[in-house]
């Protein structure tokens, strides 16, 4: 039994990748560690459960990585996706540390495999977890438990006592009541606030009500709010997040990877008025995947429809819900509860502007529209071969970037510019330090692992002093 009256060296709030890396590192550094996870044992590890890979720099190919991915290239990629909105020094440090992460995390029992079918483009840069994120978490939990880390599930932290940047105790829900837990230092790894609709609404307006949350319902930003309220410095923009267009039939929370749709580039995307609103073929899908959540969020009622024809049906990864199917565009519109005349007009218009080309979905081909706004720059083929198909899509929020500012020790920085006495942060809750906007696949786990490990190590050292 976990004894909550005892004073632990390190208290970790959260139960995902960042939390477990911190807990293991702190324990290995000799500290006594308690992990408080809000979710049940099955749902432990929030968004980490849904992941499949992490992006780490490496100087040579490995059993599972098809080639080198040098620190410079990683850094360039990060600069490109964030448009420079990153703390460069911190980002470089993270990328450097990510190299060691590949072996460190394997030593904690996590196993890798070559990139999954359908994700060849990541085979060189990203390390895939054998069995996926939950397998990865299971390994971390097993290691943590073997090392003697205490873990409590269904243990949401609902309050914290923080004085002048110093953590004193946390109030944790226990059944109907609660308990106060003291510790020498604190690591917060409780995720972003993506599951908090009210908070999302503050910056996104009522549109946020129609967002689907791809991962855990537990990442409500309660800890983030407490920290900001206690004078920790804020970093990032509350509207910045990773958001993709997912199947509108997905559940409100935890729909995970299987609601993802990779067929935008093969058809057209219309809003509820049957109007197109963005170039579907602007660039290869992996580079455009993460802009469509935001695009759909900007449309009326936050809904869109991907429409394509029989020729494209088998060109993309299958997804969990079947596409809506009809013999004519008009019938398809009816099934989607759209105006048939309007959809027919949009499709005809589109078809009329497609110029002949040689279709090649493996590269930027010359199939495009001419004289159409918005254009479709690649893979534009007339939508003419029945049956016709559609997927309804909504914005699916992966995670938010607003967080607490940290330094190279993963130590929180206070709004007055001073480092916190004993508080550290890792993972989504501080992602905004390196990820001001944009996204590069697998970097969420890199941020969690690298800063988690540092936070754990530093928190352990801090507790001893």
């Amino acid at each position: 039994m976990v004894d909550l009256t005892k004073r632990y060296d390190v208290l970790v709030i959260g139960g995902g990748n960042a939390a477990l890396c911190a807990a293991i590192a702190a324990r290995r550094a000799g500290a006594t560690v308690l992990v408080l996870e809000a979710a049940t044992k099955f749902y432990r590890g929030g968004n980490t459960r849904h992941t499949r890979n992490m992006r780490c720099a490496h100087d040579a190919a490995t059993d599972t990585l098809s080639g080198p991915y040098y620190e410079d290239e990683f850094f360039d990629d990060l600069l490109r996706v964030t448009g420079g909105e990153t703390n460069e020094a911190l980002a470089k440090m993270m990328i450097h540390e990510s190299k060691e992460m590949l072996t460190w995390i394997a030593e904690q029992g996590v196993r890798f495999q070559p990139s999954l079918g359908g994700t060849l483009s990541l085979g060189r840069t990203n390390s895939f977890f054998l069995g996926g994120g939950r397998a990865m978490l299971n390994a971390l939990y097993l290691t943590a438990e073997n090392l003697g880390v205490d873990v409590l599930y269904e243990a949401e932290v609902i309050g914290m006592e923080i004085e002048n940047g110093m953590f004193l105790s946390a109030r944790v829900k226990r059944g109907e009541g609660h308990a106060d837990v003291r510790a020498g230092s604190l690591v917060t790894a409780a995720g972003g606030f993506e599951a908090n609709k009210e908070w999302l609404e503050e910056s996104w307006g009522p549109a946020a009500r129609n967002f689907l949350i791809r991962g855990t319902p537990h990442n409500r930003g309660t800890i983030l709010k407490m920290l900001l309220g206690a004078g920790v410095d804020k970093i990032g923009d509350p509207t910045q997040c990773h958001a993709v267009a997912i199947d509108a039939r997905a559940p409100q929370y935890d729909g995970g990877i299987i609601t993802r749709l990779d067929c935008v580039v093969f058809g057209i995307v219309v809003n509820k008025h049957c109007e197109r609103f963005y170039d579907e073929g602007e660039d290869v899908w992996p580079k455009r995947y993460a802009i469509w959540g935001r695009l759909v969020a900007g449309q009326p009622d936050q809904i869109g429809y991907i429409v394509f024809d029989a020729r494209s049906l088998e060109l993309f990864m299958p997804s969990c819900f079947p596409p809506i199917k009809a013999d004519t565009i008009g019938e398809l519109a009816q099934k989607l509860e759209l105006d048939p005349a309007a959809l027919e007009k949009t499709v005809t218009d589109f078809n009329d502007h497609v110029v002949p080309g040689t279709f090649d979905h493996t590269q930027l081909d010359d199939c495009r529209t001419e004289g159409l706004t918005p254009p479709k720059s690649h893979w534009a083929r007339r939508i003419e071969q029945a049956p016709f198909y559609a997927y309804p899509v909504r914005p699916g929020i992966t995670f938010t970037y607003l967080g607490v500012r940290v330094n190279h020790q993963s130590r929180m920085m206070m709004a007055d510019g001073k480092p916190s006495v004993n508080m550290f942060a890792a993972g989504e809750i501080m992602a905004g330090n390196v990820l001001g906007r944009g996204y590069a696949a697998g970097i969420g786990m890199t941020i969690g692992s690298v800063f988690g490990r540092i936070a754990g190590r530093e928190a352990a050292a801090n507790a001893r002093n």
Partner: protein
Amino acid sequence: MHATDTLAEADRLMTVCNSCRYCEGLCAVFPAMELRRDFADGDLNYLANLCHSCGACYSDCQFSPPHEFNVNVPLVLAQARTDSYAAYAWPPAFSGLFARNGLAISIIAALSVAVFIAGFIGWADPKVLYTAQTGPGAFYRVMPHNTMALIFGAAFLYAIVAMVMSVRMFWKDIGEPASTLTEGASIWQAVKDASTLRYLDGGGVGCMNEDERPNDNRRLYHHFTFYGFMLCFAATSTATLYHYLLGVEAPYPWYDLPVVLGTLGGIGLLIGPVGLLAAKFRRDPAVMDKQRYGMDVAFLAMLFLTSLTGLLLLVLRETPAMGMLLAVHLGVVFSLFITMPYGKFVHGIYRFLALVRYAKEKRMMEAGELTA
């Protein structure tokens, strides 16, 4: 669209898994699944028999129950697998034997033992049956060798014919041409994969059994069972050769090849089934097809009894108990033979064949001839 609700559920799961693919590296099932977009009954029966029930994909799945997607691949494939044994049973009239398999096998075994005992009492010379017999031909004084060979030869032949017929149906149903069975490379790969139980390893760490700590116990006990069985089979085969080729009659001395092989195999068949049974009772019930428990238990019990009665016979063969023990042992072995096509024994055959097909598909995948 599907023959059963179980197959419809398997289809749903494979569609979910195909859009996820996180378990791709765990075993053969997922790569084979990725080669398909739609899942006909034959495809699902192939995948179900390819699954070794290691349980890894259940504990690694973010969508397993209580998640609303309710993804439980090991359970549903286990159900589909047993259904497939019944669906391919030959003659089809006997497929009902799979419904309450534990009971069916017990009754057949009991009857078989009873018939042998009655037969011995009825036909054998009481003076021989109840007194100690020694020296070459001791057994055959109780039951003539030719009668024994005839009865067991016929039972064995029947089992082979029934299983060949079933296999033909399976192979046709999964849509694989007969020619695949003549490809040396695929067969050899399948022999290696089956004999090492390559896919009963949870993707490398061992099976998920009673809790989240994976271990290799089931693989170990399965090895005891399988190799025990093979050694016993080898013992019987060498004994047959001794009899017909060398004209040397059983019982053989303890150091002779048939006895050594049989004893080692028998020990394997005591340890293996007990270990597997214990693992079964301890295993997380969530991933097990509890309704078909009876089938597994019956088969393990039959193997155990075959070995136990055989070893007792070896130990007590020079005492007056030999006659009755021989009757019991032969009764058990006879029922093991005739129930082979209608019990858990067939899992090995279908799984081996599924591995043959997978070996072929894997080769073609790697050569780029087959893509999802």
